[in-house]
Protein backbone atom coordinates (compact mmCIF):
# COMPACT_ATOMS: atom_id res chain seq x y z
CA UNK A 1 0.00 0.00 0.00
CA UNK A 2 1.65 3.26 -1.08
CA UNK A 3 1.36 6.50 0.88
CA UNK A 4 -1.48 8.09 -1.11
CA UNK A 5 -3.67 4.99 -1.04
CA UNK A 6 -3.01 4.63 2.70
CA UNK A 7 -4.08 8.25 3.33
CA UNK A 8 -7.22 7.68 1.24
CA UNK A 9 -7.93 4.45 3.13
CA UNK A 10 -7.62 6.21 6.51
CA UNK A 11 -9.79 9.08 5.22
CA UNK A 12 -12.40 6.46 4.25
CA UNK A 13 -12.24 4.94 7.73
CA UNK A 14 -12.71 8.41 9.25
CA UNK A 15 -15.55 9.39 6.87
CA UNK A 16 -17.53 6.13 6.91
CA UNK A 17 -19.04 6.52 10.42
CA UNK A 18 -19.44 10.28 9.90
CA UNK A 19 -21.58 9.79 6.80
CA UNK A 20 -23.53 6.97 8.46
CA UNK A 21 -24.31 8.93 11.65
CA UNK A 22 -25.03 12.09 9.67
CA UNK A 23 -27.52 10.21 7.46
CA UNK A 24 -29.28 8.82 10.55
CA UNK A 25 -29.29 12.28 12.17
CA UNK A 26 -30.72 13.87 9.01
CA UNK A 27 -33.49 11.27 8.66
CA UNK A 28 -34.39 11.60 12.38
CA UNK A 29 -34.49 15.40 12.25
CA UNK A 30 -36.61 15.27 9.07
CA UNK A 31 -39.08 12.86 10.69
CA UNK A 32 -39.27 14.95 13.90
CA UNK A 33 -39.89 18.09 11.84
CA UNK A 34 -42.80 16.29 10.10
CA UNK A 35 -44.12 15.46 13.58
CA UNK A 36 -43.99 19.20 14.47
CA UNK A 37 -41.20 18.64 17.01
CA UNK A 38 -38.82 21.60 17.24
CA UNK A 39 -35.23 21.28 15.99
CA UNK A 40 -33.73 21.52 19.49
CA UNK A 41 -36.03 18.83 20.93
CA UNK A 42 -35.44 16.69 17.84
CA UNK A 43 -31.69 17.02 18.28
CA UNK A 44 -31.89 15.86 21.91
CA UNK A 45 -34.12 12.90 20.96
CA UNK A 46 -31.79 11.96 18.10
CA UNK A 47 -28.72 12.18 20.35
CA UNK A 48 -30.25 9.87 22.95
CA UNK A 49 -31.72 7.38 20.49
CA UNK A 50 -28.48 7.07 18.46
CA UNK A 51 -26.28 7.10 21.57
CA UNK A 52 -28.29 4.40 23.32
CA UNK A 53 -28.32 2.27 20.17
CA UNK A 54 -24.62 2.39 19.31
CA UNK A 55 -22.95 3.21 22.65
CA UNK A 56 -25.29 1.80 25.31
CA UNK A 57 -22.51 1.14 27.85
CA UNK A 58 -21.63 4.85 27.90
CA UNK A 59 -25.06 6.46 27.69
CA UNK A 60 -26.90 3.97 29.88
CA UNK A 61 -24.08 2.78 32.18
CA UNK A 62 -26.15 1.49 35.11
CA UNK A 63 -29.07 -0.26 33.46
CA UNK A 64 -30.39 -0.28 29.93
CA UNK A 65 -33.77 -1.71 30.92
CA UNK A 66 -36.55 -0.93 33.38
CA UNK A 67 -37.71 -4.05 35.22
CA UNK A 68 -41.51 -4.52 35.33
CA UNK A 69 -42.45 -7.97 36.67
CA UNK A 70 -41.63 -11.70 36.52
CA UNK A 71 -43.63 -14.61 35.11
CA UNK A 72 -42.06 -17.94 36.07
CA UNK A 73 -38.44 -17.87 34.88
CA UNK A 74 -39.10 -14.85 32.65
CA UNK A 75 -38.23 -11.33 33.77
CA UNK A 76 -40.16 -8.73 31.81
CA UNK A 77 -38.57 -5.31 31.27
CA UNK A 78 -38.95 -2.31 28.99
CA UNK A 79 -36.18 -0.38 27.26
CA UNK A 80 -36.05 3.37 28.03
CA UNK A 81 -35.19 4.31 24.43
CA UNK A 82 -36.77 1.48 22.41
CA UNK A 83 -40.12 1.55 24.26
CA UNK A 84 -40.52 4.60 26.51
CA UNK A 85 -39.30 7.20 23.97
CA UNK A 86 -41.68 6.38 21.07
CA UNK A 87 -44.64 5.79 23.39
CA UNK A 88 -44.13 9.13 25.17
CA UNK A 89 -43.63 10.97 21.87
CA UNK A 90 -46.83 9.43 20.45
CA UNK A 91 -48.97 10.09 23.52
CA UNK A 92 -47.77 13.66 24.06
CA UNK A 93 -48.19 14.62 20.39
CA UNK A 94 -51.63 13.00 20.10
CA UNK A 95 -52.74 14.68 23.33
CA UNK A 96 -51.49 18.10 22.17
CA UNK A 97 -53.11 17.82 18.75
CA UNK A 98 -56.50 16.71 20.19
CA UNK A 99 -56.44 13.55 18.13
CA UNK A 100 -59.38 11.56 16.88
CA UNK A 101 -58.98 8.62 19.32
CA UNK A 102 -61.83 6.62 17.80
CA UNK A 103 -60.09 6.65 14.44
CA UNK A 104 -56.78 5.65 16.01
CA UNK A 105 -58.28 2.69 17.90
CA UNK A 106 -60.08 1.44 14.78
CA UNK A 107 -56.97 1.90 12.60
CA UNK A 108 -54.83 0.01 15.10
CA UNK A 109 -56.66 -3.24 14.28
CA UNK A 110 -55.23 -3.76 10.73
CA UNK A 111 -51.76 -2.45 11.71
CA UNK A 112 -51.59 -4.76 14.75
CA UNK A 113 -52.85 -7.69 12.68
CA UNK A 114 -50.14 -7.04 10.08
CA UNK A 115 -47.49 -6.76 12.81
CA UNK A 116 -48.71 -10.05 14.33
CA UNK A 117 -48.45 -11.84 10.96
CA UNK A 118 -44.99 -10.49 10.11
CA UNK A 119 -43.25 -11.27 13.42
CA UNK A 120 -42.12 -14.52 15.02
CA UNK A 121 -41.04 -15.23 18.60
CA UNK A 122 -37.57 -16.78 18.83
CA UNK A 123 -36.30 -17.97 22.21
CA UNK A 124 -32.80 -16.45 22.11
CA UNK A 125 -33.57 -13.29 20.10
CA UNK A 126 -37.07 -12.29 21.24
CA UNK A 127 -39.75 -11.22 18.77
CA UNK A 128 -38.19 -10.72 15.36
CA UNK A 129 -39.25 -9.68 11.86
CA UNK A 130 -36.74 -10.15 9.03
CA UNK A 131 -36.27 -7.63 6.24
CA UNK A 132 -38.45 -6.79 4.27
CA UNK A 133 -41.31 -8.20 6.36
CA UNK A 134 -40.89 -5.55 9.06
CA UNK A 135 -41.77 -2.88 6.49
CA UNK A 136 -45.38 -4.11 6.17
CA UNK A 137 -46.77 -2.75 9.50
CA UNK A 138 -45.43 0.80 8.85
CA UNK A 139 -46.63 0.50 5.24
CA UNK A 140 -50.16 -0.32 6.48
CA UNK A 141 -50.05 2.54 9.01
CA UNK A 142 -48.90 4.96 6.30
CA UNK A 143 -51.56 3.87 3.78
CA UNK A 144 -54.34 4.24 6.38
CA UNK A 145 -53.10 7.68 7.46
CA UNK A 146 -52.59 8.99 3.91
CA UNK A 147 -56.00 7.76 2.68
CA UNK A 148 -57.84 9.22 5.69
CA UNK A 149 -56.04 12.56 5.94
CA UNK A 150 -59.33 14.51 5.61
CA UNK A 151 -60.79 12.82 8.70
CA UNK A 152 -57.91 13.85 10.92
CA UNK A 153 -57.64 16.94 13.09
CA UNK A 154 -53.87 17.16 12.63
CA UNK A 155 -50.96 15.99 10.46
CA UNK A 156 -51.32 12.46 8.99
CA UNK A 157 -47.63 11.88 9.78
CA UNK A 158 -48.40 12.11 13.50
CA UNK A 159 -51.18 9.50 13.16
CA UNK A 160 -48.87 7.28 11.10
CA UNK A 161 -46.13 7.45 13.76
CA UNK A 162 -48.57 6.57 16.55
CA UNK A 163 -50.19 3.78 14.53
CA UNK A 164 -46.77 2.33 13.70
CA UNK A 165 -45.63 2.43 17.33
CA UNK A 166 -48.79 1.14 19.03
CA UNK A 167 -49.54 -1.31 16.21
CA UNK A 168 -46.20 -3.03 16.71
CA UNK A 169 -46.47 -2.99 20.52
CA UNK A 170 -49.91 -4.63 20.38
CA UNK A 171 -49.49 -6.91 17.36
CA UNK A 172 -45.86 -7.99 17.71
CA UNK A 173 -44.91 -7.72 21.39
CA UNK A 174 -48.11 -8.15 23.41
CA UNK A 175 -49.84 -10.62 21.05
CA UNK A 176 -46.77 -12.86 20.76
CA UNK A 177 -45.92 -12.66 24.45
CA UNK A 178 -47.87 -15.78 25.57
CA UNK A 179 -46.16 -17.77 22.79
CA UNK A 180 -42.71 -16.56 23.91
CA UNK A 181 -43.46 -17.30 27.57
CA UNK A 182 -44.65 -20.82 26.69
CA UNK A 183 -41.04 -21.81 25.83
CA UNK A 184 -39.64 -23.81 28.72
CA UNK A 185 -36.38 -22.33 29.99
CA UNK A 186 -34.07 -23.83 32.59
CA UNK A 187 -32.48 -20.61 33.86
CA UNK A 188 -33.79 -17.07 34.31
CA UNK A 189 -34.50 -15.27 31.00
CA UNK A 190 -34.96 -11.58 30.21
CA UNK A 191 -37.64 -10.34 27.83
CA UNK A 192 -37.11 -6.66 27.04
CA UNK A 193 -39.82 -4.79 25.12
CA UNK A 194 -38.02 -2.41 22.74
CA UNK A 195 -34.74 -4.16 23.57
CA UNK A 196 -32.98 -3.20 20.33
CA UNK A 197 -33.14 0.46 21.39
CA UNK A 198 -33.36 2.94 18.49
CA UNK A 199 -33.31 0.08 15.99
CA UNK A 200 -36.14 -1.82 17.65
CA UNK A 201 -39.19 -2.56 15.53
CA UNK A 202 -41.29 -0.22 17.71
CA UNK A 203 -39.20 2.90 17.09
CA UNK A 204 -38.27 1.89 13.55
CA UNK A 205 -41.85 1.33 12.39
CA UNK A 206 -42.84 4.73 13.81
CA UNK A 207 -40.06 6.46 11.86
CA UNK A 208 -40.62 4.47 8.65
CA UNK A 209 -44.42 5.06 8.85
CA UNK A 210 -43.81 8.82 8.76
CA UNK A 211 -41.49 8.55 5.73
CA UNK A 212 -43.98 6.30 3.88
CA UNK A 213 -46.86 8.67 4.71
CA UNK A 214 -44.95 11.64 3.32
CA UNK A 215 -44.22 9.62 0.18
CA UNK A 216 -47.87 8.57 -0.28
CA UNK A 217 -49.13 12.12 0.32
CA UNK A 218 -46.71 13.36 -2.32
CA UNK A 219 -47.86 10.67 -4.78
CA UNK A 220 -51.57 11.38 -4.14
CA UNK A 221 -51.04 15.12 -4.52
CA UNK A 222 -49.14 14.61 -7.78
CA UNK A 223 -51.94 12.37 -9.05
CA UNK A 224 -54.61 14.95 -8.10
CA UNK A 225 -52.63 17.73 -9.77
CA UNK A 226 -52.29 15.66 -12.93
CA UNK A 227 -56.06 14.95 -12.96
CA UNK A 228 -56.80 18.64 -12.42
CA UNK A 229 -54.50 19.63 -15.30
CA UNK A 230 -56.14 17.04 -17.57
CA UNK A 231 -59.61 18.49 -16.75
CA UNK A 232 -58.44 22.00 -17.62
CA UNK A 233 -56.95 20.77 -20.90
CA UNK A 234 -60.21 18.95 -21.76
CA UNK A 235 -62.28 22.10 -21.12
CA UNK A 236 -60.05 24.28 -23.29
Amino acid sequence: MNEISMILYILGIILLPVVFFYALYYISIYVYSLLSISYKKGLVLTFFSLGATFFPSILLPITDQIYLFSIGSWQISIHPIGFVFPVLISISLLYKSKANWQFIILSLIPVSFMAFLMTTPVLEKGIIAPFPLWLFPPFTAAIISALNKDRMNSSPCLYAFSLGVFGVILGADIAHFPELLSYSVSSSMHAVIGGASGFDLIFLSGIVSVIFTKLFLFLFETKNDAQFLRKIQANM
Partner: protein
Amino acid sequence: MEGIRTVTKQILTVISKHPHHTIFCTLFMFSILINSILIGYMGLPAFIDSFNNPSKYELLSSDQLTLESSKNYAGAIIERQCFDDLSKNELTGFLCLRSSQGTYTIYSQTREGIDASISDEFVGEVVTLIPNDPVSLFACLWWQQTIEFKNNLLS
Protein backbone atom coordinates in the same frame (compact mmCIF):
# COMPACT_ATOMS: atom_id res chain seq x y z
CA MET B 1 -13.23 39.87 27.23
CA GLU B 2 -15.28 41.84 24.73
CA GLY B 3 -13.38 40.12 21.90
CA ILE B 4 -14.21 36.64 23.23
CA ARG B 5 -17.89 37.58 23.51
CA THR B 6 -17.95 38.86 19.92
CA VAL B 7 -16.26 35.69 18.60
CA THR B 8 -18.65 33.46 20.63
CA LYS B 9 -21.61 35.44 19.27
CA GLN B 10 -20.33 35.08 15.71
CA ILE B 11 -19.80 31.31 16.16
CA LEU B 12 -23.32 30.90 17.63
CA THR B 13 -24.77 32.89 14.72
CA VAL B 14 -23.03 30.64 12.20
CA ILE B 15 -24.21 27.50 14.09
CA SER B 16 -27.82 28.68 14.22
CA LYS B 17 -27.74 29.55 10.51
CA HIS B 18 -26.20 26.24 9.41
CA PRO B 19 -27.10 23.58 12.03
CA HIS B 20 -26.72 20.60 9.67
CA HIS B 21 -23.26 21.70 8.50
CA THR B 22 -22.25 22.23 12.11
CA ILE B 23 -23.32 18.70 13.02
CA PHE B 24 -21.43 17.26 10.04
CA CYS B 25 -18.25 19.19 10.87
CA THR B 26 -18.51 18.24 14.57
CA LEU B 27 -18.91 14.57 13.65
CA PHE B 28 -15.96 14.79 11.26
CA MET B 29 -13.68 16.44 13.84
CA PHE B 30 -14.84 13.93 16.43
CA SER B 31 -14.09 11.03 14.10
CA ILE B 32 -10.57 12.39 13.43
CA LEU B 33 -9.97 12.70 17.19
CA ILE B 34 -11.31 9.22 17.99
CA ASN B 35 -9.37 7.54 15.18
CA SER B 36 -6.18 9.38 16.20
CA ILE B 37 -6.59 8.02 19.74
CA LEU B 38 -7.06 4.52 18.33
CA ILE B 39 -4.02 4.78 16.05
CA GLY B 40 -2.10 5.92 19.12
CA TYR B 41 -3.22 2.86 21.10
CA MET B 42 -3.05 0.20 18.38
CA GLY B 43 -0.35 1.50 16.08
CA LEU B 44 -1.01 2.29 12.40
CA PRO B 45 -0.30 -1.21 10.93
CA ALA B 46 -2.64 -2.96 13.40
CA PHE B 47 -5.30 -0.25 12.96
CA ILE B 48 -5.36 -0.67 9.16
CA ASP B 49 -5.13 -4.46 9.44
CA SER B 50 -8.16 -4.50 11.76
CA PHE B 51 -10.27 -3.04 8.94
CA ASN B 52 -8.84 -5.42 6.33
CA ASN B 53 -9.15 -8.54 8.49
CA PRO B 54 -11.88 -7.74 11.03
CA SER B 55 -12.40 -11.38 12.05
CA LYS B 56 -8.85 -11.43 13.46
CA TYR B 57 -9.60 -8.72 16.01
CA GLU B 58 -11.88 -8.79 19.01
CA LEU B 59 -12.85 -6.23 21.64
CA LEU B 60 -13.12 -7.77 25.10
CA SER B 61 -14.90 -5.82 27.81
CA SER B 62 -13.74 -5.69 31.42
CA ASP B 63 -16.44 -8.13 32.63
CA GLN B 64 -15.14 -10.77 30.18
CA LEU B 65 -11.55 -10.27 31.34
CA THR B 66 -9.56 -11.40 34.31
CA LEU B 67 -6.39 -9.38 34.43
CA GLU B 68 -3.28 -10.73 36.02
CA SER B 69 -2.05 -7.26 36.85
CA SER B 70 -3.90 -5.23 39.47
CA LYS B 71 -4.33 -2.23 37.14
CA ASN B 72 -7.90 -1.39 36.30
CA TYR B 73 -8.57 -1.58 32.56
CA ALA B 74 -11.86 -1.11 30.73
CA GLY B 75 -11.04 -3.92 28.29
CA ALA B 76 -8.64 -5.08 25.62
CA ILE B 77 -8.33 -5.45 21.86
CA ILE B 78 -7.08 -8.94 20.98
CA GLU B 79 -5.50 -10.10 17.74
CA ARG B 80 -6.43 -13.74 17.26
CA GLN B 81 -3.48 -15.96 16.40
CA CYS B 82 -2.99 -19.64 15.73
CA PHE B 83 0.23 -21.50 16.39
CA ASP B 84 0.85 -25.16 15.61
CA ASP B 85 3.71 -25.34 18.01
CA LEU B 86 3.23 -22.86 20.81
CA SER B 87 6.55 -23.57 22.46
CA LYS B 88 8.41 -22.27 19.39
CA ASN B 89 6.81 -18.84 19.19
CA GLU B 90 8.65 -15.91 20.58
CA LEU B 91 5.77 -13.80 21.87
CA THR B 92 6.81 -11.78 24.84
CA GLY B 93 4.06 -9.13 25.07
CA PHE B 94 0.65 -9.45 26.71
CA LEU B 95 -1.03 -12.73 25.85
CA CYS B 96 -4.68 -13.70 26.09
CA LEU B 97 -5.90 -17.13 27.16
CA ARG B 98 -9.43 -18.47 27.44
CA SER B 99 -10.45 -20.76 30.24
CA SER B 100 -12.95 -23.60 29.90
CA GLN B 101 -15.53 -21.37 31.66
CA GLY B 102 -15.26 -18.86 28.78
CA THR B 103 -13.47 -16.09 30.69
CA TYR B 104 -10.39 -14.49 29.19
CA THR B 105 -7.18 -13.94 31.13
CA ILE B 106 -4.35 -11.64 30.12
CA TYR B 107 -0.77 -12.52 31.06
CA SER B 108 2.24 -10.30 30.80
CA GLN B 109 4.54 -13.35 30.63
CA THR B 110 6.29 -15.37 27.96
CA ARG B 111 4.47 -18.38 26.57
CA GLU B 112 6.83 -20.77 28.33
CA GLY B 113 6.01 -19.18 31.69
CA ILE B 114 2.29 -19.61 31.11
CA ASP B 115 2.63 -23.21 29.94
CA ALA B 116 4.24 -24.11 33.19
CA SER B 117 1.30 -22.87 35.26
CA ILE B 118 -1.94 -23.42 33.32
CA SER B 119 -3.35 -25.32 30.36
CA ASP B 120 -5.94 -22.88 29.02
CA GLU B 121 -6.58 -22.25 25.33
CA PHE B 122 -4.32 -19.67 23.71
CA VAL B 123 -6.43 -16.98 21.97
CA GLY B 124 -3.90 -14.45 20.72
CA GLU B 125 -1.82 -11.42 21.45
CA VAL B 126 -3.11 -8.27 23.13
CA VAL B 127 -2.93 -5.35 20.70
CA THR B 128 -3.78 -2.82 23.38
CA LEU B 129 -5.24 -2.61 26.84
CA ILE B 130 -7.94 0.05 27.07
CA PRO B 131 -7.51 2.50 29.93
CA ASN B 132 -10.54 2.89 32.16
CA ASP B 133 -11.65 6.33 31.01
CA PRO B 134 -14.78 7.22 29.01
CA VAL B 135 -12.90 8.65 25.99
CA SER B 136 -10.82 5.50 25.44
CA LEU B 137 -13.84 3.28 25.96
CA PHE B 138 -15.85 5.37 23.50
CA ALA B 139 -12.99 5.22 20.97
CA CYS B 140 -12.95 1.42 21.12
CA LEU B 141 -16.73 1.17 20.78
CA TRP B 142 -16.53 3.55 17.79
CA TRP B 143 -13.84 1.29 16.23
CA GLN B 144 -16.01 -1.80 16.81
CA GLN B 145 -19.11 -0.17 15.31
CA THR B 146 -17.16 1.06 12.26
CA ILE B 147 -15.74 -2.40 11.61
CA GLU B 148 -19.19 -4.01 11.94
CA PHE B 149 -20.73 -1.37 9.67
CA LYS B 150 -17.98 -1.81 7.04
CA ASN B 151 -18.51 -5.59 7.14
CA ASN B 152 -22.29 -5.28 6.77
CA LEU B 153 -21.85 -2.80 3.95
CA LEU B 154 -19.48 -5.01 1.98
CA SER B 155 -21.12 -8.39 2.65
